[in-house]
């Protein structure tokens, strides 16, 4: 088992950073400081963190609508993330993207897509770039169980497979697409089974176990860097909250049992990993408490930063459409 203590602590740090960030987001949504649609990543932290810590800073990721966790896991700036959610000019995207379109190209985050499956080909293209440029940068598209039913999934896996591109397809199977269970919507038992159709490895991983995620992705990344082609990894996980914050107000029929939700909360990735850190003597309770306060301070600072930041000027409306601008009306 993994014996890099700094790495094991960093896993906890990033998972906790995501958790506390998302808890703050919930407050800000309730307060009306964050508008539009916000999809909570709480419960799924181990997937993004395990995967992103298996990557280099210069590797690429793409995300989806539920993507506050991915940029944080990849090392994106929390201040800019929070500012973006508040629509401020200091955000990743100058306030133009918001919750579903976080992106930080400076740390390899090629951006998130609110349209399902849409950013999977983008990641394949980044990997094609690596191949053409002769470097070994790997691309990891994050997408859900529901998105694996989009045609883009099929086309992308086949394309990456025949060209042996360095892509690790990462399906976050939180078992529901809005109210639809993947058991009803996905014909195969596991999404990882679909790898067989492309002659690539398909691995089902416990998405609540950050170390398991880290190891599975590390192996796939090693293969990809070695030019052996793509892999499909399914992180079996769970979202604690409704599909999007506030949606429970309009979803009429319950689509999952309270017992099920409870069962999964018992397998909370952050608690599991904390127990391990303590039991293995990698961290003391005091150190974990210190981590808590470190993160709390970061989130407070990010919130302050976002609140203090200015909104974009009206003149920003027509900026950023083109690298080589043209008259726009």
């Amino acid at each position, binding site marked *: 088992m993994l014996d890099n203590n700094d790495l094991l602590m960093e896993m906890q740090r990033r998972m906790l950073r995501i958790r506390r960030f998302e808890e703050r987001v919930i407050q800000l949504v309730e307060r009306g400081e964050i508008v539009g649609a916000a999809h909570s990543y709480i419960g799924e932290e181990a997937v993004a963190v395990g995967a992103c810590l298996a990557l280099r800073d210069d590797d690429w990721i793409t995300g989806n609508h539920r993507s506050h966790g991915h940029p944080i896991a990849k090392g994106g700036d929390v201040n800019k993330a929070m500012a973006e959610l508040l629509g401020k000019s200091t955000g990743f995207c100058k306030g133009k993207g918001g919750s579903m379109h976080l992106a930080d190209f400076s740390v390899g985050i090629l951006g998130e897509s609110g349209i399902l499956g849409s950013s999977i080909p983008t990641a394949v293209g980044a990997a094609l770039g690596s191949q053409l440029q002769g470097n070994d940068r790997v691309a990891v598209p994050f997408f859900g169980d529901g998105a694996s039913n989009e045609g883009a999934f099929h086309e992308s896996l086949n394309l990456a497979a025949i060209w042996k591109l360095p892509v690790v397809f990462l399906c976050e199977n939180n078992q529901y697409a809005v109210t639809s269970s993947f058991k009803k919507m996905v014909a195969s038992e596991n999404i990882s089974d679909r790898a067989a159709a492309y002659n690539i490895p398909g691995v089902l991983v416990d998405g609540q176990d950050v170390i398991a995620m880290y190891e599975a992705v590390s192996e796939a990344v090693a293969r990809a860097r070695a030019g052996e082609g793509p892999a499909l990894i399914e992180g079996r996980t769970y979202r604690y909250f409704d599909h999007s914050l506030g949606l429970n107000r309009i*979803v009429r029929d319950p689509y999952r049992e309270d017992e099920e939700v409870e069962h999964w909360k018992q397998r909370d990735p952050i608690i599991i990993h904390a127990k391990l850190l303590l039991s293995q003597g990698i961290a003391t309770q005091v150190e974990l408490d210190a981590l808590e306060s470190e993160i709390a301070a970061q989130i407070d600072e990010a919130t302050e930063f976002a609140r203090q930041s200015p909104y974009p000027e009206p003149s920003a409306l027509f900026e950023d*459409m083109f690298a080589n601008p043209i008259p726009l009306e």
Partner: protein
Amino acid sequence: MTQVQTETRDITLTQALNEAMREEMRKDERVFIMGEDIQSGVYGASGGLAAEFGPERVRDCPLSENAFMGAAVGAAAVGMRPIVESAFCFMWVAMDSLVSQAAKMRYMFGGQVNLPIVYRASLYYGGSMAAHHSDRSYPIFMHIPGFKVVFPSNAYDGKGLMKTAIREDDPVLFCEDRTILGSRAFVPEDDYAIPLGVADIKREGSDVTIVAIGGMVPRALDAAETLDREGVSAEVIDPRSLVPLDKQTILDSVAKTGRLVTVDMAHKTCSAASEIAAIVAMEGFWSLQAPVQRLGTVNVHIPFSTALEPLCYPTAESIADAARTTMS
């Protein structure tokens, strides 16, 4: 439509669409609905229908829009009458089924098949949903032959137009504008259908013609109020269907007023507003006493920030300004 104010039974556009679908599904068992999470009624208008008609006729679909929007074509071809619930932003992935099959099939097969399908397309603009979720791409479906394009601006029209759409033997693209889904109007309980291709004059006037679509209609009516106070009498026309388009009502109005403002929440270039402006420049030219004013969404994608998004769309104020320009 002035009775709307006076009458009692006011319901929302969402409720009106729901009512129309419910009544038609009771009458005709060939009618069924496909969409995502419609059994739980997440997105409104299909709410409660699963409880009455069951999961077979109110089908939750996987996230495979190209397949299920194409399956609607096949089901229609063998005698069913599908309603598909979706949104413009989710139709890009399904464009091939919509264009290559739904729109082209009847003509390319020499009229051998009828395709009674209603594609319900939500517009989520105006709610900080950002670039991916704010599409308003109905002008694309006006450009592609084969669809009838329907766009109600209130609950009363909504129910009557939805009934017509469901009974139509051709593919109908039915636009549902979230900025007005919650707006209430008088809706009779009885069964009525509003024909396609018949514009409705929402307000009569003599100085300037304002043609507005969907969620732009209430804004145009507000503008007309303002203009009225300034002594400018604006006529507000709601085409209600863009394919077929009731050109005559628009041309007659311009013949009366000599001035035209076209208002659209789609991007300006090649928009419905452009088309209407072009038609009047061709067929109503001699009536025009001032340049046509075309209003639409600016040609950028929809930004998330509340500091920017509101700057994108026509407003009652910008509509009134455009009307004033035609008067000066």
